[in-house]
């Protein structure tokens, strides 16, 4: 579960692409929303080195929305993620 003010889990890099598109084909749309959000959010996550799993998603299927991640960044969550120990 994502925690407020994120004491992040291990990853300091953005999450790796899941193992292969073959796996993705069998995923549900809900799972994909939750884990991959959207191109925009993934881009922002990449740019800020954020692990999406750490953010509370308010979108459909628990998706991390643009506002979610921007709020997260604004509230220092990204810095917290970076600063968190291994």
């Amino acid at each position: 579960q994502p925690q407020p003010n994120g004491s992040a889990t291990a990853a300091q890099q953005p999450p790796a692409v899941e193992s292969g598109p073959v796996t993705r084909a069998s995923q549900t749309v809900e799972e994909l929303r939750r884990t991959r959000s959207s191109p925009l959010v993934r881009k922002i996550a990449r740019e800020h080195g954020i692990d999406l799993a750490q953010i509370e998603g308010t979108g459909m299927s628990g998706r991390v929305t643009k506002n979610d991640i921007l709020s997260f960044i604004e509230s220092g969550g990204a810095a917290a993620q970076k600063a968190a120990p291994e």
Partner: protein
Amino acid sequence: GGVVTFVEAIRQGIWEEMERDERVFVIGEDVGVYGGAFKVTDGLIDYFGPERVIDTPISEAAIVGAACGAALMGMRPVAEFQFIDFISCGFDMLTNFAAKCRYRWGAGIPAVFRGPCGAGVHAGPFHSQNVESFFMNTPGLKMVEPSNPYDAKGLIKAAIRDPDPVLFFEHKKLYRLPRLRQEIPEDDYIVEIGRARVAREGHDLSIITFGAQVLTALDAAEELEREGLDIEVIDLRTLLPLDRETILASVRKTSRALILHEAPRTGGIGGEIAGLIAEEAFEWLDAPVVRIGATDTPVPYSPPLEEYHLPQVKDVVDAARRLAAY
């Protein structure tokens, strides 16, 4: 100038261009003595004479062809289809002659082909069509569809002055809609072809639309504002060539795109807009690109059927809510 309806704005535009440029003339069925089925050309023949306001036989292919020939000779014809549904009878002449002349030997065809389009008036499948999709894949044509009197006048003038063939679609529901009555400038002005306008600024979601559906979008936006959603409405005005920059700028701002048109969804020009966005604004998207069109059926006649067929404010509100909640 003055406070005008949509139809009056178009009529003024044609009138002023005919006064300004003696090469401009009108040609179509019942456009002269009768002033046009929707009275768009009312009074022109008394002022400009029957040589410049020509009543033709029922011959859409000949009307288009004659406009092309006159244009090659340097005239500026404004050809009318009594209902845009009859443009299908001139489809060959438009797509094969008008559209391709300049490309094939450098001869531009500065003609305007205009007529009333659109549904919602219980006129049935042959007096309610939206035909832009027929021509979207025909380079050489331009297509324009205003949503308000100011743009209507500015665009008909721009179309008449354009050196290439322009299809000018006038949604018949807008012609005398009181809501659209608007004060327009006295002075000469044009609205540039190829430029969309931001009908309503917003930040949460972009509705990209044109014609009568601009009103649907604005009504939906007003309703959604009460729910705290801030909707941007882009009025395309020109359908071909699309104003890619304005579309992309809006989507990059809001990250959510809802494309709305009155033609059936499948095969409508919404696909072109969605494709543009999905390719060139992909990393700005926070949600799927949503398209709303009419059902994939002809336009039915009976009011409950037509209402089901056409996009309604509630359909747009519902879709925008879901898209915003994505």
